[in-house]
Structure formats: C-alpha cells, structure tokens
C-alpha cells in the first residue's frame, strides 16, 4: 500500500502536473493555428473544433498574401538578423580572444566596460540613439537596425565566448607560436574549437533581434524597411475585424519560428543547461 502510494507520488503526479501545464502552454498556439484554416462561420461557431472538410478554408492566408507586404518584411527581418548575427559573432569572438589571451594593462577594466551592456538595456539610450542615427542620415535604413543590434548583442557574446576561450589549453597556442604562427592565425585556429559556444551565443542573440518591436518602430518604421514583427503588429492592428486574416497572419509569423526552434531546440537547451548563462 505504502509502496503503491510512493510510486503514485513519484511518477504519476509529476506527469499530471507537467501535462496540465503543457496544455496551458500549447493550447493558445494550437487554437490559433487550427482556426486559421477554417471559414469565418466555423471560427465563431466552434472555435475548439479542428477544421473538417466542410469548414476548411484558406481565405485568411489569401488576404494576407494579397494585402500585406509579408514577403518583403520577411526579407528585411532575415537581412537584419543574419548580418547583425554575423557581425556580433566575428567582432565579438575577436574581442573575446584578445581579452582571454593577452594580459595587457587595463584588461579586466575593459572586460567590465564591455560587460556593462549585459545588465543595462540598450533601450534606455534610445533618445541618444535616435539623435545619432538621424544625424548620420540612417533613419529608415536596415543599416541603423544592424548597427544598434550589433552593439546590443556584443556584451553577452564577448562575455560567454571569453569564458569558453579561457578553457582552451595554453599548450595548443604556444605550440602554434613556436611553429611561427601569427596571432591572427592562432585566432583562426581557436575559432573552430569554440564552435559549440558560438552556436549557443548565436541562438541567444538572434531571438531578441528577430522578435524586437522597439527599434524597428522607432528607427525604421518605413514600409520598405519594416521587419516581420513590426509588419505583423501593424497589419494586425488594421485588420482586427478580419478574423481569418488575423489568425492566418499570426500563424504565418509563428510557424517558421516554431519549426526552426524544433530543429535547434537541442542545441539551445544544451546551451542553457551547460552553464553558458550561469
């Protein structure tokens, strides 16, 4: 009897709690996706039903395709995210290498200076950023977003990469130096060795850039430079009453991210749990 009770609390209860929360976490996403494939009538009559042969409809997707500039928003988001990510990783890795490799005077101080940005949100400097960007004539350009996101992502990237680079055995670098390798060559040798850390950093800095609403809204709200997040926000605001279109655009904005997440989730979760952010 006691043993039975023990197995109950040990294995059944945890699964029950987790399953209940799983439903709470998944239900809203599921609801939006299933209803995006239904007729307007069915959306209101039976929101909880999955689409059937009679209620199936893609009219929402057609509206979104015709009315909103989603292909161009996607292209903008991809450009901004990929270029910023590339800059953050290469520039960040170089700085992290210098900080972890050379004990020059002022090294710890520079490390602290660069790490300040981890805790201080860059948004608080928005008034200054907007003034700077307009004086550079970069308002409504993707370049403005790329520069700001690079500055935003660097502190965490440098901090994490530096701690990984410090763990690389000294002998490796010394051996290369004895062979006459330049410092740039040694950096090139180290880079592949911290690949897992680079992948982790990539995921961590990429998500906030892709999802950001603040800087696109302030620095690049023009039709040509809109990102997906801003485009979706404005499209949804205008089409509130067209439920098919709203549900379809939500699904369109959500599904690519979810697919990418499912592909990379192992990498991401390993990154979190391996102490990269501790």
């Amino acid at each position: 009897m006691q043993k039975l009770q023990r197995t109950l609390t040990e294995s059944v209860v945890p699964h029950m709690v987790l399953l209940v929360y799983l439903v709470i976490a998944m239900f809203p996403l599921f609801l939006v996706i299933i209803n995006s494939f239904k007729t307007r009538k069915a959306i209101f009559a039976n929101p909880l039903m999955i689409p059937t042969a009679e209620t199936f409809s893609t009219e929402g997707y057609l509206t979104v395709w015709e009315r909103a500039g989603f292909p161009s928003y996607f292209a903008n988001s991809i450009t901004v995210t990929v270029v910023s990510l590339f800059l953050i990783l290469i520039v960040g890795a170089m700085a992290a290498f210098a900080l972890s490799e050379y004990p020059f005077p002022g090294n710890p101080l520079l490390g602290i200076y660069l790490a300040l940005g981890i805790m201080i949100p860059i948004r608080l400097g928005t008034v200054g950023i907007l003034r700077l960007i307009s004086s550079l004539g970069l308002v409504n350009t993707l370049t403005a977003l790329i520069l700001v996101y690079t500055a935003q992502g660097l502190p965490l990237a440098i901090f994490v990469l530096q701690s990984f680079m410090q763990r690389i055995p000294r002998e490796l670098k010394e051996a290369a130096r004895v062979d006459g390798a330049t410092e740039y060559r040694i950096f090139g040798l180290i880079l592949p060795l911290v690949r897992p850390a680079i992948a982790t950093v990539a995921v961590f800095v990429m998500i906030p850039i892709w999802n950001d609403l603040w800087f696109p809204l302030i620095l690049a709200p023009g039709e040509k430079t809109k990102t997906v997040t801003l485009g979706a926000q404005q499209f949804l605001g205008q089409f509130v009453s067209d439920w098919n279109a709203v549900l379809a655009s939500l699904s369109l904005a959500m599904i690519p991210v979810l697919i990418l997440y499912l592909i990379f989730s192992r990498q991401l979760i390993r990154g979190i749990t391996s102490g990269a952010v501790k």
Partner: protein
Amino acid sequence: MQVSSTYKKKRKPFPFHIIVFLAPAVIIYTIFMIYPLIDSLRLSFASGETGGYIGFENYKTLFNNELWSIRFWGALKNNFEFFFIHMLVQNPIGLLLAALLSRRTLRWTNTYRTLLFMPTMLSVVIIGFIWQLILSPLWGVAEGMMALVGLDALFQPWLGLETTALPTLALISVWQFIGIPMMLFYAALLGIPDELVEAAYVDGASAWTVFWRIKFPLILPTVGIVAILTFVGNFNSFDLIYTVKGALAGPNFSTDIMGTFFFRTFFGQQLQLGNPEMGATVAAIMLLIILVGVLLYLVGWQRRIQTYEA
C-alpha cells in the same frame, strides 16, 4: 647582461594585433550603446526650448508638475505591480516545473522542456494578439471554456477593465516567459551532485524535505539571478502593453508602465509632440531604478550567499 636584457625588452614589437582584435567591438559598442546612453543622460539636464543646461529642472517637472507626475507615479506603481506578479506567479511555477523536470527517474523530459519553452521563443507581438483573441468577448473562447466548468458567470472582458487589465497583461507575460526561470532552475538543479541527494533519501527523507532542505538552499544563487533578470526585464518591458493596449496604455492609463510612458514621452503620440529632453529624463530614472536593483542584488543577495557558502 643587464643591458642586453633591457635591449631585448625594447625590441618587443608594439602589440598591434591586440588593438586589431579589440577595436571593432569597442568602437561599435561605444558609439551605438555607451555614447547614446551618456548623450541621453546629458539631455536629461538640458532645457527643451534652449537646449542649455538647466540642472535638475526636468526631474523636478517630472516629480512635481501635475501633468507629468500623475503619469510618472502611475507608471512606476503599475510597473512594480507588473514585477510583483511575475515574482509571485512566474518564478514559483517555473521552479515547480523545473523541480519536476529534474527528477532523474522522470521520462519524456526532453519533450516536456522543448514544448514548455516554446512560447518563450515567440515574439511578444504574436503572444499579445493571441491572448487578445482568446479573451475577446466577441470570439467567446475563454467564456465558452469557463462555461464547460460552470464558471461562465465569472467571465469579464478582463483586458478592457481598469481594475483587471494590468494583472491580466502581467499574467499573459508570465505565461510567455515562464520558460526562462524554468530553464535556469532546471540547469541549477541538474548541477547538484547525486551523492548529496542519495544520502538524504537513504536516511528516509521525503522528496519534499529533500527539495526544501537540500536542493533549494543549493540553488539560491540561481534564485537571485532569476529575480534580477525578472526585475530588469520587467522595468524594460514595452512590447506587450504597446501591442495589446497601444501607446496610451488604456483603459485610462491603467496599464501604463515605464516603457510605454518613456515611449510616449520622447516619441509622442497622436496630439502630443515628442519631447526628447523629458524622454531622456524618464530613461535616466529607469536606468537608476535598474541600477539600484542590480546593486541590491550584488550587495544584498550575492554577497550573503557567498558568505553562506563559505
């Protein structure tokens, strides 16, 4: 001998490579992050009309001028409420989920944590709209589901009422970001050595006792990290309120937090023109609040934990 060694030292070439490695990062970071922050702080001491230095006048206006102060204190109070709801709901549930996930005998942990972390990955804009639809009286999904358990009489348009809009938005945000404390606690719990826990079980301790007496004290550093991340995140929050309620954070400013107040102030909305100097002043106060939070964490929490560990 002496001479030759100093000679050798002088010959060591200037380490240009260090500068090459560091310069790009330092330049981009300084120009696009540190300089704007300092420029913004400077502006908070400048007059909106002349641009000249006026000391703490903008701060006085913000605190004392009725037009400004009512919005400022309102946003500050709401922001604290927003933060406390996260601390009381998000972090305990995150801890509970992490505690369950980290049990070694549990199966399907990979599936659970992947799916539970999913909402955290999505844009706040998407999440805001999804919940707006679910809670909408027009669609009636929330009402219909409450009717299934006989609670439909309790349904209200929560997002539209002055008293419930802010807690509702806070709970939506909790729902989305619960994955972060969950993952951080989960990582910390996995790091606890097996021997410690095994020994307690052998002594006949229950899972409950083991958790609170052994595991929880060991993950206290993570509790502090989660708290400070929640604090900084909440006092920098903007997207959700803006998406669901717009820049005016209605009804009647009841969902206005520092982020939306800051945005309205410097960027303007509808009939109100943007005011960079006052916006910079609001940003400076936000920076101060965040710095106080971080300092409290470093001095009050992290140091105590370290002495405790020693």
